């Protein structure tokens, strides 16, 4: 509900979509004047974890998986115009069939990936 409230706030106040990959991707390249709100949102994302801590002790090992995974996530969200927040939360809330297809697609490929990693062939 907090995630939805954050999404609603950004849409109602700023008229913008709370898609993290889009905000990040555009913050990387966009014109300077339009930067402010994006940096504000990204900063806001970080602050609760800075105060409360993340409580996450373990991240995927070995390290090269983080790189492979990150490259696929970065390129894939750029090509597919969105991630879990943009398509999964905003798109579905906007009753978008395009986002429904994207969400079902990345859920399926993620389930297969986990299947291979946990029960199959990838070390």
């Amino acid at each position, binding site marked *: 509900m907090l995630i939805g409230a954050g999404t609603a706030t950004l849409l*109602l106040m700023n008229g913008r979509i709370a898609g993290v990959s889009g905000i990040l991707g555009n913050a990387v390249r966009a014109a300077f004047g339009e930067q402010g709100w994006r940096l504000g949102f990204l900063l806001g994302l970080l602050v609760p974890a800075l105060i409360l801590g993340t409580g996450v002790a373990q991240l995927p090992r070995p390290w090269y998986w983080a790189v492979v995974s990150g490259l*696929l*996530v970065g390129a894939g969200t750029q090509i597919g115009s969105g991630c879990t927040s943009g398509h999964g939360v905003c798109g579905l809330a906007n009753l978008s069939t395009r986002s429904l297809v994207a969400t079902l697609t990345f859920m399926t490929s993620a389930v297969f990936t986990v299947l291979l990693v*946990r029960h199959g062939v990838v070390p």
Partner: protein
Amino acid sequence: MKFLTALIAGLLFGAGLLVSGMTDPANVLGFLDIFGAWRPQLAFVMGAAVLTAAPAFWFVRQRRRSLLGAPVDLPDRRRIDKTLVAGATMFGVGWGLSGICPGPGLVLLASGHGMAYLFMAAVIAGMWLVQLTRN
């Protein structure tokens, strides 16, 4: 003002990811592992987020302006093409490898884990590479 409201939106969003446990890759991988010890939480979190945000989208679709008066240009809802499916497939594979997507990845930077920095650097590199090939 735009900065402030975006900051508040980010705070809500970040707190939501944290409280719901979605920043912990173990919960995400547990959700994706439908053939193992399945953890359904992600579906409930996403469902609740969609239901909470839906009225805001409905309101803005009617009004076409935000409460602060900014014009709202919502993304295309219909176009389904190879690019969308290819990108989403790629993203899913990356997500399934680590259990981290861009939002939680950013939040995890606060944990100070070197791995989180490596992951986010790779995400930005991946985005940048695609942007390069487009120009």
